[in-house]
């Protein structure tokens, strides 16, 4: 299990290549979040809570490891300024079977969205705005 919070870009392909090699692994799921270019957004800035962020991500990943008997889990989340097309974050899960790998990855994403201390600000030609939390993201936690 590995958790990283960083401003530097990460290499999704290299991370994916090195993940989930252990014995007994039959299914690997990855999720990557990408900065969308819709609505004329020029850049995104992600603020976070140093110290708490790492703790929150570790707690979420550790819970997923136990709950779905994962062989491995990986969470990488960037902060700072990013432009459209850049990778914001990724999670990866490795398990014996596909259902556990999928469910654990979705669980990690739902918790990251609403429980890890990150805040997104969008920069457009006409100004900037903090991204509002979606009710649907909060509701998504209900299924776990």
């Amino acid at each position: 299990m590995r958790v990283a919070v960083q401003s530097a870009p990460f290499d999704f392909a290299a991370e994916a290549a090195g993940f989930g090699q252990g014995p007994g692994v039959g299914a690997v799921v990855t999720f990557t979040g990408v900065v969308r270019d819709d609505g004329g957004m020029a850049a995104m800035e992600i603020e976070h809570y140093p110290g708490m962020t790492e703790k929150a991500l570790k707690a979420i990943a550790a819970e997923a490891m136990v709950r779905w008997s994962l062989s491995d889990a990986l969470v990488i989340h960037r902060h700072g300024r990013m432009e459209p097309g850049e990778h914001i974050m990724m999670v990866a899960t490795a398990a014996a079977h596909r259902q556990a790998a999928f469910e654990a990855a979705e669980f990690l994403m739902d918790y990251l969205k609403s429980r890890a201390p990150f805040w997104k600000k969008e920069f457009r030609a006409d100004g900037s705005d903090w991204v509002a939390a979606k009710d649907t993201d909060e509701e998504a936690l209900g299924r776990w």
Partner: protein
Amino acid sequence: MDVLYFAWVRERIGLPKERIETQAATVAELVEELRAREDRYAAAFADLSALRVAVDQELTDFSAPLAGAREVAFFPPMTGG
């Protein structure tokens, strides 16, 4: 204790962190003290349903006790991922 502000709470109050001496027993009492200070605090804390709070880096709610707490943080709902 250290009080931290993030995202638009930080922008509205105008600083990321400050040291506050308080006798407040709960987060809610601390919020009342801050609101009474200046308009920018009153504005930031106008609608508590739009805010989240962490005590010593653990998410909690406004009724949480502050006894022994070293760090309280206020911020809007998170938007990571």
